């Protein structure tokens, strides 16, 4: 049984981590492509249209990877977490079915037109098709976060005698106090990924002194989108999301911040430190006194509950993982703001394209938004443990009763093998598209 749980958890964690690498880029990138196309319609400068087309290629590849790695997520609810699906399907099935009906059809119908139909549609309708793809991908994110929010903070339900959760208030699913802060925080995070990605490719073109025209467009657009989104991800969305955790999952908040004991006279904010689970303290701690209390309650001496105030049975199952996930996300987020504010300042002073050291930094930042978003996702998911549905259903009670650990291990290995292959192919092809660059479009004509 323990093996079974372990393999199923690893499989879900592995497949969703890999999956989420793709939509976080496509959600942000779809907005940026729409922006390029809109810029073209307004200015009629061909470069913007070529920029849109270039990013469409990377978008299409990403989108395909996102779709093919997304289908297993829906399946795995039933295959590996059958008991969870059986008991909560009447509720989370609503939002998941809505995702299929409202967003996947929208995305897939208009993506085909967007990719194949420029000549058939003309530029204005082509722009509209792009807008539809953008709407579809953002709606998809919304409905997934709505599902996720219900698991974090269940609303609008009642539990029948046989243990089934049934819906009794549909609108509550979308008025869930957990939903909007999480969604906006998540979308800001996606925009960060795409902004840094676009800026990094632009920096690469400028530094390698090829296709510099496009390099400038990409760096400029990436930095403008980047500075807005990296500020938004911290304030107000991150702040609102954190306040939800304080309010609805105080034990999770204590573990995230690494507070083992409640402190009188206000809590310090931990910048660095390693959780020592045996002695229930942080090693090598660097912390600023009273700041956490202020950030959380706007009072320097406000009391924040430590882990010691909660029964151990409801402590998050992986406290160090949760603590690191949160600190990596928040730390990287701070760095993103610093870099993007600096770059915006130089852009404004007309010095950015010549400031080589900053372009180098922009170029090498590519993986970090991915790491930050993944760490953020882990923070949310590990924070909910040991619960599948917060406070109501434990993870061990959600697993498929008839699937053996051997079968779960077989499919875990299968996914690992397949996804390594997919990852390699994807990298190879993206690098190829980037090497050719947007000028390849012009040469085609």
């Amino acid at each position, binding site marked *: 049984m323990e093996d079974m749980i372990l393999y199923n958890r690893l499989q879900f964690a592995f497949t969703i981590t890999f999956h989420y690498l793709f939509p976080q880029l496509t959600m942000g990138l779809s907005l940026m492509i729409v922006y390029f196309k809109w810029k073209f319609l307004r200015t009629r400068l061909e470069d913007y249209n070529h920029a849109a087309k270039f990013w469409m290629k990377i978008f299409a590849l990403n989108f395909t990877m996102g779709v093919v790695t997304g289908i297993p997520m829906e399946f795995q609810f039933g295959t590996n977490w059958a008991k969870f699906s*059986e008991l909560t399907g009447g509720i989370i099935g609503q939002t998941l079915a809505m995702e299929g009906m409202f967003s996947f059809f929208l995305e897939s*119908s208009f993506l085909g037109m967007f990719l194949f139909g420029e000549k058939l549609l003309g530029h204005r309708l082509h722009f509209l098709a792009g807008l539809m793809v953008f709407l579809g991908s953002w709606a998809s994110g919304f409905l997934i976060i709505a599902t996720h929010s219900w698991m974090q903070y269940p609303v609008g339900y009642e539990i029948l005698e046989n243990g089934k959760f*049934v*819906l009794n208030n549909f609108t509550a699913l979308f008025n869930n106090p957990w939903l909007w802060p999480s969604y906006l925080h998540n979308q800001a995070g996606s925009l960060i990924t795409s902004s840094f990605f676009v800026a990094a490719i632009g920096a690469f073109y400028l530094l390698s002194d090829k296709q510099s025209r496009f390099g400038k467009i990409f760096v400029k657009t990436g930095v403008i989108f980047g500075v807005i989104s990296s500020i938004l991800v911290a304030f107000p969305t991150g702040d609102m999301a954190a306040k939800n955790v304080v309010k609805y999952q105080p034990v999770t908040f204590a573990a995230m911040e690494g507070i083992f004991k409640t402190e009188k006279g206000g809590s310090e904010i931990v910048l660095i430190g390693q959780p020592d689970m045996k002695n229930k303290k942080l090693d090598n701690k660097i912390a600023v006194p009273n700041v956490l209390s202020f950030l959380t309650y706007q009072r320097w001496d406000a009391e924040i509950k430590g882990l010691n105030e909660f029964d151990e049975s409801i402590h998050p199952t992986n406290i160090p993982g949760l603590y690191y996930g949160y600190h990596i996300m928040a730390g990287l987020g701070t760095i993103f703001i610093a870099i993007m504010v600096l770059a915006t300042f130089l852009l404004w002073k007309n010095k950015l394209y010549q400031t080589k050291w900053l372009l180098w930094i922009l170029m090498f930042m590519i993986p970090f938004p991915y790491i930050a978003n993944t760490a953020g996702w882990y923070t949310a998911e590990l924070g909910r443990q040991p619960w599948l549905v917060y406070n109501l259903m434990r993870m061990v009670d959600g697993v498929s009763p008839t699937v053996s650990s051997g079968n779960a291990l077989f499919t875990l290995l299968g996914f690992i093998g397949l996804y390594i292959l997919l990852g390699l192919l994807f990298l190879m092809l993206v690098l190829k598209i980037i090497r050719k660059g947007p000028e390849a479009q012009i040469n085609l004509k």
Partner: protein
Amino acid sequence: MEIFWFIVLMVMLGIYVILDGYDFGAGIVHLFFAKTEEERKAVTNSIGPFWDANEVWLIASGGVLFFAFPTLYASAFSGFYLPLMLVLWLLIFRAISLELRGQVHNRMWEMMWDKAFGIASLLLALFFGAALGNVVRGVNLGMVENGISTQEPHYFFLALWNPTFDPLAEHQGVIDWFTLLLGLVAVVTLTIHGANWIILKTASTLNQRLKGFIFKLNCILLFLVILSAYVWHYVKPISLHNFESNNWLWAFPFIAAVGLFGLFRIKKFKKDISGFIFSSLFIFGSFGSTVASMFPILLPSTNNINPSLTVQNMAAHEYGLSVGLGWFAVAAVLVIIYFIIQFKVFKGKLDDVGYGDH
């Protein structure tokens, strides 16, 4: 209310089989019948802008199944664990082979993804046919051993096969001679269907040859259909009960027969769309007949101890199903609009749209 959702689900699955069916079929045609680079391009062009949206019908049907019949979703997905995972991997392979083929212009690269696309399409067609066979045949629900149920009554687990390949064995596998036969029917049916789609959407040199192949495949199909109708009765003797009490259900087999008959006259057709209409009718009719013969059972139990899973005992709670009506109606209208727009934009023969255009 649950009957309404059952009909919705079956209609969605039916649409899925007809739509994604033609691109599976195109994959099989691609594997066996497309000889030159132009012909292969004609095949892939014909499904290029569509297959992605077709596949969404499967995902959306999965979503509706999850929401309207969560217990069935949980039971079937964990029960058919291994075949579903294989289907997933094949779907992934097929999708990436279509997407990746055009990315690099190298003979070996293209050949590799052409084969991956064809083989994945063939195996998926076989698996979907076999899946239908499993649902018709039923499973050992509750995993009964020596007269004692070893699990909750609606859970089960199926291995891929057992050594006897006997559909009536106590511990069935996913693949036995009956489900394999239905798998073959599906492969032949979808090959014909895909060929008709290619004829409809392209002006390839392949088209005339395909019409000849369809005639031969049709003879094979007729033989397989008669054979499976015969053994169906042996595996599932009660299949005709619903038809005896509701005579109008005979409309489904009748439609299938019309479709099959029409396919024999393919060379006579003036319009390229006729073949596609007849193969769609055949698929619609045979899928409908199967559903009609089973209703209200969703998954039959093969033991006498645990009851079969039915529309009534598997449905979600009344309130959830009713509010679902509201958003589903809106979504359905939108989906129809998208499809009309899509078919308008890409109407006619597709030969001018290059495969690697994006």
